[in-house]
């Protein structure tokens, strides 16, 4: 058997073992050790499976599971191997982090059972070799994550979030099932290898594409289907939020690529598919970050950033779909690589951000940014790792977020003229939206880092915060290191990913990316564009080091003094800029999109010019919830009510209905 397959199946086995051990072991410490140990082993095995699958190549096997006439298949191909790598790269540090995070958790059993099952579900989806296995593990992933979202079910909001999550997950599941059913009707088999070979007509291909796009789009949190995401991700325990935002959304991206690129293939693409994906990506990127800016719940804000980053990934994939359709396989490979590069980048820095948010939550017990502040003094390591992730997600060199966004920009710029006027406008427009999203993300993370970690503590809890333990620090240090490595050495990582476009597009970038030497990343050739993160970093270290060494007087301590207060004698921490005030200019600029509800209550004393108290309340709702979720919900309720009323009638009404139905059927088929 193939080594990648053995490693991948043992990764699944380790996760399954972790679930079982939770039921056998007694004692909190033993349970915690077994969970962290087995999950980290599972993560390491997944990383191994990913590397060996990408380098050596994968294989397929029929599992001794499933129905007698319908066995389950497992397969590791280049795409699956890459996503195994994504899963492993985050699962491993999260498992280490979990050991520290659960130290004071009182009710652990649900976490111990469902967290490994959740990981198993995600790995199963990636390894599935047929539609049946795919759907089984997909549901395992959705259902087990439901129990994780509702872990703290004593709060009403968590139960609500869990319910909407479960509902949307099943809507998604239904649509995906429809997509597979369409492919099954054409191929006559659930087996992916048969589906790949089957010839599909353009009409049915479009049906399958639409079903897959909406199904996976719901799960990935694409605007305007994203309404469940900002509710569900924050209420889960932070180690689970890291996995959900970091990997589960990527599994949906994987599913989309699997169905559209692999089972159907670039030959079936139509031009509007790429346009749809590009439009969805652009709107997700900008809407996600605009809504993120208006949040003051730290984890909710990060959840909205996941919407943004999914949008960025889809911009890369959408560009690739257009380019593949119009016969530019090399450029399509570049777009696909860019999208996939952002996939692993986002998995790593978003996982790290959620772990950092978890560390803060663990330490001060609230997610509300308005009661944080000054944590860099109390939690220096957490602050440092969070800063690394913040710089990465803001697409700033020399970290990893910049590399993938740079590659997407290159794809958009190198794209030749394709098709009509709409196409001509949408490619530069998506690049513009990417630029806007990137710049707004930087704004948002200045706000997050500034409000949470800098300035003065806004509450007693923040004043007395404690740094987290070594396990949690280690869990955060590993992805921080990955952020830097993926940012510095893309020339080694892109050729590794190259197996994916080779399999899907028969185009390879491995030679061109480092044609000019390993220091320079050159997507096509050196005349077009090149970027060298190592040289930029070395240059900055030299210049910055020289400036510091030359200017810093040796042996003196910098004099500290009180901050300047404009002569005001009593400054207090409440006077600082906070999350709401920081984003006020943007709230005003984009008020047409955000539609903030602002209320100012002024209490006046006897004289109308003398105010005693001013209270400002602002609420920014989610347009998707307001204009899509709630109307659909109301419609469903009304229909149910109507049906309910019909049930209350006497026997003659039922007979009338039966008669009308028979008449209709006769009219149709007779």
């Amino acid at each position, binding site marked *: 058997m193939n080594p990648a397959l053995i490693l991948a199946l043992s990764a699944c086995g380790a996760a399954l073992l972790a679930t079982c051990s939770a039921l056998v072991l007694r004692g909190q410490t033993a349970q915690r050790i077994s969970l962290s140990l087995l999950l980290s082993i599972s993560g390491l095995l997944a990383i191994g499976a990913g590397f060996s699958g990408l380098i050596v190549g994968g294989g397929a096997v029929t599992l001794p599971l499933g129905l007698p006439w319908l066995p389950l298949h497992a397969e590791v191909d280049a795409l699956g191997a890459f996503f195994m790598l994504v899963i492993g790269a985050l699962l491993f540090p999260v498992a280490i982090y979990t050991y520290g995070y659960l130290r004071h958790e009182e009710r652990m059993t649900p976490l111990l059972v469902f967290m490994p099952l959740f990981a198993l579900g995600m790995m199963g989806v990636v390894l599935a070799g047929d539609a049946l296995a795919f759907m089984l593990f997909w549901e395992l992933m959705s259902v087990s994550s439901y129990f994780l979202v509702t872990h703290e079910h004593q709060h009403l909001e968590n139960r609500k979030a869990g319910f909407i999550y479960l509902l949307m997950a099943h809507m998604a599941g239904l649509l995906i099932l429809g997509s597979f059913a369409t492919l099954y009707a054409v191929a006559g088999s659930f087996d992916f290898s048969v589906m790949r070979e089957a010839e599909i007509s353009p009409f049915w291909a479009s049906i399958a594409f639409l079903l897959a796009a909406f199904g996976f789009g719901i799960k990935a949190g694409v605007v305007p289907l994203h309404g469940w995401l900002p509710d569900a991700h924050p209420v889960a325990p932070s180690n689970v939020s890291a996995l959900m935002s970091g990997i589960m959304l990527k599994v949906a991206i994987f599913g989309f690529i699997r169905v559209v690129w692999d089972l159907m293939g670039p030959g079936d693409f139509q031009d509007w598919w790429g346009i749809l994906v590009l439009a969805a990506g652009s709107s997700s990127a900008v809407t996600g970050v605009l809504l993120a800016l208006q949040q003051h719940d730290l984890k909710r804000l990060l959840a909205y950033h996941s919407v943004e980053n999914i949008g960025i990934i889809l911009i890369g994939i959408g560009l690739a779909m257009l380019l593949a359709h119009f016969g530019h396989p090399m450029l399509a490979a570049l777009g696909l690589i860019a999208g996939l590069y952002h996939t692993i980048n986002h998995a790593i820095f978003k996982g790290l951000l959620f772990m950092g948010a978890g560390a803060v939550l663990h330490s001060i017990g609230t997610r509300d940014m308005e009661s944080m502040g*000054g944590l*860099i*003094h109390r939690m220096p390591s957490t602050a440092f790792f969070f800063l690394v992730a913040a*710089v990465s997600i803001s*697409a*700033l*060199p020399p970290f990893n977020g910049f590399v993938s966004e*740079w590659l997407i*920009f*290159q794809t958009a*710029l*190198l794209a030749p003229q394709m098709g009509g006027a709409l196409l*001509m*406008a949408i490619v*530069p*427009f998506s*690049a*513009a939206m990417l*630029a806007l999203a990137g*710049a707004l993300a*930087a*704004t948002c*993370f*200045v*706000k997050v880092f*500034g409000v949470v970690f*800098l*300035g003065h503590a806004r509450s007693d809890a923040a004043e007395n915060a404690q740094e987290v333990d070594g396990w949690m620090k280690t869990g955060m240090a590993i992805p921080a290191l990955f952020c830097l490595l993926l940012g510095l050495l893309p020339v080694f990582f892109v050729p590794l990913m190259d197996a994916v476009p080779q399999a899907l597009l028969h185009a390879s970038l491995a030679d061109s990316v480092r044609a*000019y030497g390993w220091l*320079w990343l050159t997507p096509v050739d*050196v*005349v*077009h*564009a*090149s*970027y060298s993160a190592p*040289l*930029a970093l070395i*240059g*900055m270290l030299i*210049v*910055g080091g020289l*400036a510091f060494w030359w*200017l810093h007087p040796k042996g003196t301590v*910098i004099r*500290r*003094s009180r*901050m*300047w*207060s*404009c002569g005001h004698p009593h*400054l207090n921490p409440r006077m*600082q*800029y906070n999350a709401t005030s*920081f984003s*006020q*200019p*943007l709230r*005003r*600029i984009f008020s047409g999109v955000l539609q903030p509800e602002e209320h100012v209550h002024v209490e006046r004393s006897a004289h109308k010019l003398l105010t005693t108290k001013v209270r400002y309340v602002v609420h920014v709702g989610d347009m998707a919830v307001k204009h899509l979720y709630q109307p659909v919900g109301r419609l469903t309720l009304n229909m149910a009510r109507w049906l309910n009323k019909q049930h209350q009638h006497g026997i003659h009404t039922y007979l009338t209905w039966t008669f009308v139905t028979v008449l209709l059927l006769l009219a149709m088929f007779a």
Partner: protein
Amino acid sequence: MSSFAIQLLQAILLVLVAPLAVGFVATCKARLQNRRGAGVLQPYRDLRKLFAKEVVMAAHASWIFRFAPYIVFTATIMAASVIPPLLVDTPLSLTADVIALVALLALARFFLALAGMDIGTVFGGMGASREMTFSALAEPAMLMSVFVLSLGAHSTNLTTMITHTLNTPMMMQPSLAFALAAMVMVAIAENGRIPIDNPSTHLELTMIHEAMLLEYSGRHLALMEWAAQIKLVLFATLLVDLFVPWGIAVAADAAGLLLALLFWLLKLMLLFVLLAIAETGLAKLRLFEVPEYLSAAFVLAFLGLITHYMLEVGV
């Protein structure tokens, strides 16, 4: 002379000339306003004074506040080092293309804004909020206007882009007019000049850039000020390089380089005289008119892109 040495020299030249440029603008403005002004060398005197002074930091400042000046200064220098004032063909332009250049400036701004938030004064937060908001609107406009040129040159490499402009008749590219207008608007906004921000006031309610620097003193302040001066020259050089590169040296010989130096200084002087006139003639915009100004820049750049696709591709 090897091209690497020239690269190093021209980067150092740009960094050293930067205070002079700011002094020149200030003097021009003073003359336009019937004042004598402090002389073109005043920024050098200011820097010397600040470097010699003692640093005082707020009791609450963290390492972010302390290291931000170095990060801002270095990132700005790195950005400046890839822009060629004199010789087109430079090895460092391979390290970072125009997108990376914009990102390096964004890195500097990120840490500048964080330093503003670090002390926890209202001014710092206000400056950070405004700077990041406006730059979030300016940065896409900047990238879009650069992309207009990149699309023509099929490259984001500065050397290739400048060479392309040198070898293409200007009349063939109407989209460049849009790009130029957009980039001038962005350059004014990014450098905090009138009508966006006024670098010479500390009026609390309107300041943006200065609000983040209020707590800085001594060498830290000097580095921040110097970085801002470099940024001004960087943008001016970028405009000159991308849109009117004529006179820039193509080969590394002494005569060509001297001529290029002369041309560069002349073009910069002309640009700064125009800036001084504009700053004297215009009033500062209200804060919430700035987004409209920046959106206009963005729309112009985007129109440039569309024009390029419609009129220039396939011609």
